[in-house]
């Protein structure tokens, strides 16, 4: 029996290693290729880097001004996340702690909105933004981003707050704290980890968003990172070297964040999803 268990373990381990290779290979390959001159890219590719050049990265920031899309993404994702967290926390508190009629309907409504196909509201949003002269502006992206960021935030936060024991706030009330005091002194400090997690999740979703950013921006001044990368145009051919360099630049901070916060991210995702 022991030998059998060993065999099973080995097989599982083997498949796991294969999966790891599968998962990491595209990154590795992109990284290696980003240091390879364009001419050599599709000619006799090898898994080990032959030359290492930094031209693509230099071009990325000098010629293409990749700083701008990064800045735009930071501003849009950051602002949306901040706004959704503040408004969303209040709503989540109400949904998690207060009793009022229609609560179930609201939760169902919020859940339903997270499932909206974005494409269905692109055209009216476009026309609305155009009439407000918000095309190709920051608010012109932040507003549409609320459609998915707000429900997501409320949903995950409600689930998280529900997991904080009620009797802590009850004890605070008996001790004399008003609702607002128990919220700020007891609940909020304990909810900080959830807020951070929800913030991270929301930020990631905003950062990665493509369709709205594609539809509501006109040029490089306001494009976000995903749009900028997708629309890289070369003079004669697709500038793969730079595209991959941009991909590496876009991925590296994400990878670091995930490595640092993986436990939190997993908790947040599952709290939001499995609860519902």
């Amino acid at each position, binding site marked *: 029996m022991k030998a059998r268990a060993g065999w099973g373990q080995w097989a599982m381990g083997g498949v796991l290693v294969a*999966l*790891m290779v*599968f*998962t990491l290979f*595209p990154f590795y*390959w*992109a990284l290696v*290729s980003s240091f390879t001159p364009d001419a050599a*890219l599709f*000619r006799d*590719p090898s*898994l080990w880097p032959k030359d290492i050049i930094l031209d693509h990265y230099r071009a990325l920031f000098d010629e293409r001004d990749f700083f701008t899309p990064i800045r735009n993404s930071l501003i849009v994702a950051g602002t949306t996340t901040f706004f959704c967290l503040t*408004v969303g926390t*209040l*709503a989540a508190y*109400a*949904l998690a702690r207060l009793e*009022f009629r229609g*609560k*179930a309907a*609201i*939760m*169902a409504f919020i*859940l339903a909105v997270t*499932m*909206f*196909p974005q*494409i*269905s*509201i*692109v*055209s*009216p949003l476009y*026309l*609305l933004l155009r009439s407000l002269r918000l095309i190709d502006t920051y608010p012109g992206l932040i*507003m*549409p981003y*609320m*459609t998915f960021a707000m*429900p997501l935030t*409320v949903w995950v936060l409600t689930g998280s707050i*529900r997991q904080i024991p009620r009797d802590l706030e009850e004890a605070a009330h008996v001790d004399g704290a008003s609702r607002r005091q128990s919220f700020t002194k007891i609940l909020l400090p304990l909810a900080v980890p959830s807020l951070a997690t929800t913030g991270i999740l929301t930020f*990631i979703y905003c950062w*990665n*968003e*493509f*369709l709205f950013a594609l539809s509501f921006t006109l040029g490089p001044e306001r494009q976000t990172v*995903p749009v900028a*990368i*997708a629309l890289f145009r070369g003079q004669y051919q697709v500038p793969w070297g730079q595209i*991959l360099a941009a991909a590496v630049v*876009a991925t590296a901070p994400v990878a670091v964040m*995930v490595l640092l916060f*993986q436990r939190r*991210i*997993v908790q947040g*995702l*599952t709290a939001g*999803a*499995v609860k519902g």
Partner: protein
Amino acid sequence: MKSESRLGWMLVAPALGVIALIAIFPLGWTFWESLHLHELRMPWLGKPFIGVDNYVEIARDPRFWAALGHTAFFTFVSISLELVIGLFLALAMNRAFRGRGFVRAAVLVPWAIPTVVAALLWRFIFESQGGIANELLVSVGILDQPIVWFIKTWTAWIPVILADVWKTTPFVALLLLAGLQNIDLTLYEAAAVDGANPWWQLRHITLPLLKPAILVTLIFRTLDGFRVFDLIYVLTGGGPGTTTEPVALYTFNALLQNLRFGYGSALSVVIFSITFGIALLYVKGLGVKLAGEER
């Protein structure tokens, strides 16, 4: 207490207001628009009310039905693969082993990067005859000679599905892992004592108890699969021709390329109805637990 009710509504109002304004209002507008003829390329036609004519055109539109088929095919194949691999990953991550944290983090990175970046990475791998995919497959002997993947439809689907599986299996694995962790370990111990082997335990304990989590995953992923846009826009652009075009991309083209706002809106409504139907299934099935759960 009445004051609690009022406070509750006050706190929820801002969030609800934002959502209503930015999600519901445009939706209503889309529906209204879908009942009109609105060709931005032909402004002299005005914007007459044409009732359900757009929908009739959709029903007769072969490109729409093809797109629907592509979407269904993509969704089905992706989900199947993701469930199987995701389940395996979840089972593996459920035991403690050295490097588990690293595995979990590594597996999360594809999920965390923008879909367009993922699409580009995979496009690059399969691009041209000199790409690394061709190189590897030829050197291992699976292919006689390098092929141009994106010229034929069925070879074009392969990188698309690979990319989607690569990107979203982590999410599936996480959902299933959460479900796994809710299963009482003593059930397995009791089964082992009674003489059941691991396969039996998997079939008769794990899978049945994992059903709720699998259901949640299925529904999330079905909706996501149905809304796929970013991935295919970048990987194949819907090509070759329109043979890998999903409904969302078709709608996008109708709206923002061909500027057929009336028709595109009708397409949007159809997509929305389908996803709403699926979502309703979900909310009905699991929604009973939503509000009053904790008391």
